[in-house]
């Protein structure tokens, strides 16, 4: 696992839920006990243990560089949101303009995430990350030039491109960590990266206040405040370049691998991704878990400022609680999915996802209808837990949809999140037709409605939420995954990795399988 030459392999390890969450690998894989590394590693020099509070090179250092760069990009993409009450007066923005800018901020990365995979394949994740972070620093600094709505929308669109660091982050993790723990590593990295959307709601108003107290006028202070995310970009870019390395052994190995022919055809993988109906259900679902999280990051500070007459930094603190819940909510969602899978298998995972995401939707409706500050804050926190845990629970199931096209499906799902966010902001938060509280209520209703399709997801070998498996023969799991390869492809052995995956995935059958056949799963 972890070859860097297959198309879509740049997304390998994005989900990596081949095994359930584990902090360390069981001893069945040969471990390399060379004294060279601070952590135990496997045959490919990938760490087999996840030590959170270490900065040892190369593995944990990579983890921290990676999630902090990703978080920095979230900080700059949503940096405008808590300052909207000031910016809208400076640039004479209307509600339409503000809404369009919000849509623009999440749209750019739909495409940049897809391109980033190829960039990582070509340049490696270290340069992919550094290039994106340092080349998007000018876009952040260009906020000082903005003088009207068009400029504002354009700059927010350009800054949004840097959210593609999600891809470099996950790719980099998969080169450094063994696939048995990559689920926890990537879930933590993704969750902590998303936290940047909350940190920025706290950071920007405080920076703005400090600059104002130093004597600057309001309409200049917010422009100066944008220098802070810009400097963070430059600092993280330099740190990644100087302290990071592509692979555990160093940087040169990547050059040696160049020139290998792609083992699988991109067209085929795309076909399997696109014709699998489950892919599209997850695209829709993620649009209403990650998508609503991004939309809320954009509107919530302004909402609290206007509706409850709060000061800018108070609104920022409350808005920050929304994004910061990612610290534990996203990993918790994946963990809940794992626990459900132990007893009820894939059916448990599907029910967990439906329950968590629907609850999030109901809390969102409550938030829209809350008339007092206390109920608004409580409902917002519960809504954030629901939406973010649903993100974690989604990527706990996605790896089982297909093994051959995992990379593309993960990429499409991720893009679906951004697309859902753009659409929601366009329909509910850009026009005067809905007040923001009405928009939040309707967004909650949409979440509940668009989570219903999870009932349609049916795996022949494991069943669905309401129906039992349609194929309960012993080799049903293998049949599902190996069936993605034609007879000719199976003859040349292209399907072997999928077969290995299928063997490990049998535990998704639930507790009956666990009891009967204790395989190497935590």
């Amino acid at each position, binding site marked *: 696992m972890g070859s860097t030459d297959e198309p879509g392999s740049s997304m390998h390890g994005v989900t990596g839920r081949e095994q359930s969450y584990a902090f360390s690998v069981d001893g069945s894989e040969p471990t390399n006990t060379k004294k060279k590394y601070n952590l135990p590693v496997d045959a490919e020099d990938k760490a087999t243990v996840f030590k959170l509070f270490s900065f040892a090179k190369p593995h944990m250092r990579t983890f921290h560089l990676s999630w902090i760069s990703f978080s920095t990009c979230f900080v700059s993409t949503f940096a405008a949101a808590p300052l909207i009450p000031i910016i*809208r007066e400076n640039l004479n923005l209307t509600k339409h303009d503000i809404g369009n800018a919000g849509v623009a901020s999440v749209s750019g990365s739909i495409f940049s995430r897809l391109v980033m995979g190829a960039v990582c394949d070509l340049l490696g994740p270290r340069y992919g990350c550094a290039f994106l972070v340092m080349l998007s620093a000018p876009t952040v600094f260009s906020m000082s030039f903005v003088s009207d709505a068009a400029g504002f929308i354009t700059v927010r669109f350009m800054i949004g491109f840097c959210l593609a660091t999600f891809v470099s982050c996950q790719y980099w993790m998969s080169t450094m960590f063994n696939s048995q723990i990559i689920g926890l590593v990537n879930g933590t990295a993704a969750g902590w990266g998303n936290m940047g959307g909350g940190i920025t709601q706290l950071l920007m108003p405080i920076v703005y206040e400090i600059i104002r107290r130093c004597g600057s006028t309001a309409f200049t202070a917010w*422009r100066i405040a944008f220098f802070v995310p810009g400097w963070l970009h430059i600092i993280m870019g330099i740190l990644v370049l100087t302290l990071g390395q592509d692979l555990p052994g160093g940087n040169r190995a990547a050059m040696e691998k160049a020139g290998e022919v792609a083992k699988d055809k991109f067209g085929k993988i795309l076909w399997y991704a696109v014709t699998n109906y489950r892919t599209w259900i997850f695209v829709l679902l993620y649009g209403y878990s990650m998508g609503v999280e991004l939309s809320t990051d954009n509107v919530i500070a302004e909402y609290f400022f206007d509706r409850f007459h709060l000061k800018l930094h108070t609104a920022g603190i409350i808005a920050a609680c929304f994004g910061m819940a990612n610290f534990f909510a996203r990993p918790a969602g994946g963990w809940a999915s794992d626990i459900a899978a132990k007893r009820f298998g894939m059916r448990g995972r599907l029910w967990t996802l439906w329950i968590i995401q629907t609850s999030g939707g109901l809390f969102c409706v409550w938030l829209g209808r809350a008339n007092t500050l206390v109920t608004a804050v409580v409902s917002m926190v519960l809504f954030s837990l629901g939406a973010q845990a649903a993100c974690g629970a989604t990527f706990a199931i996605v790896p089982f949809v297909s093994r051959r096209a995992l990379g593309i499906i993960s990429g499409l799902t991720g893009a679906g999140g951004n697309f859902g966010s753009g659409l929601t902001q366009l329909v509910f938060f850009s026009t005067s037709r809905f007040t923001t509280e009405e928009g939040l209520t309707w967004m909650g209703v949409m979440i509940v409605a668009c989570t219903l399709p999870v009932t349609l997801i049916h795996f022949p070998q494991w069943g669905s939420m309401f129906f039992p498996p349609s194929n309960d023969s012993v080799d049903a799991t293998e049949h599902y995954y190996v069936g993605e390869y034609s007879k000719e492809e199976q003859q040349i052995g292209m399907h072997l990795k999928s077969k290995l995956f299928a063997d490990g995935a049998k535990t998704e059958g639930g507790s009956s399988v666990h009891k009967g056949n204790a395989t190497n799963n935590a």
Partner: protein
Amino acid sequence: MAIQKILFASLLICSLIQSIHGAEKVRLFKELDKGALDVTTKPSREGPGVVLDAGKDTLNITWTLSSIGSKREAEFKIIKVKLCYAPPSQVDRPWRKTHDELFKDKTCPHKIIAKPYDKTLQSTTWTLERDIPTGTYFVRAYAVDAIGHEVAYGQSTDDAKKTNLFSVQAISGRHASLDIASICFSVFSVVALVVFFVNEKRKAKIEQSK
């Protein structure tokens, strides 16, 4: 379970506090004595199509008890003069909406001056501050009683808020020094990246040729 009970109890207490706090009588704009004060505004630059510059131009504002007067004149303690948005500046901007509930009303967010009530003609010359946004405005003076509640008002425009409005152009907030700093840091970022990249590629080539 104990923790859950404590959380639920504190939630209940918080909501009770909220509802008690909000149990005061709602004060409405239409209950105020209309036209109790005569308010006039004279911008420093006048004429058709003139737009005042925030931070530079001034307004000469006068106010006094009008001929209509007010039944509650005895309660007037302080006169609060405010800058208010005219309807054209409220379009598609719900954060400037006019509400009848005084607490929710966002028409007049900019404070100009507050002076104790005096029967004689009062005036002030006020420089448009640098955080006034671009828009169309009028001036309103609220007569406030001893506990801080509005009792009556007068404004420089008519009831429909159509006459005697003036336009303001905000400062841009941009500065040449900011622009230059921004360009410098951007160039530094790109150049640093290119230098690192070229340097490492060169080092790798040297090592490979060894």
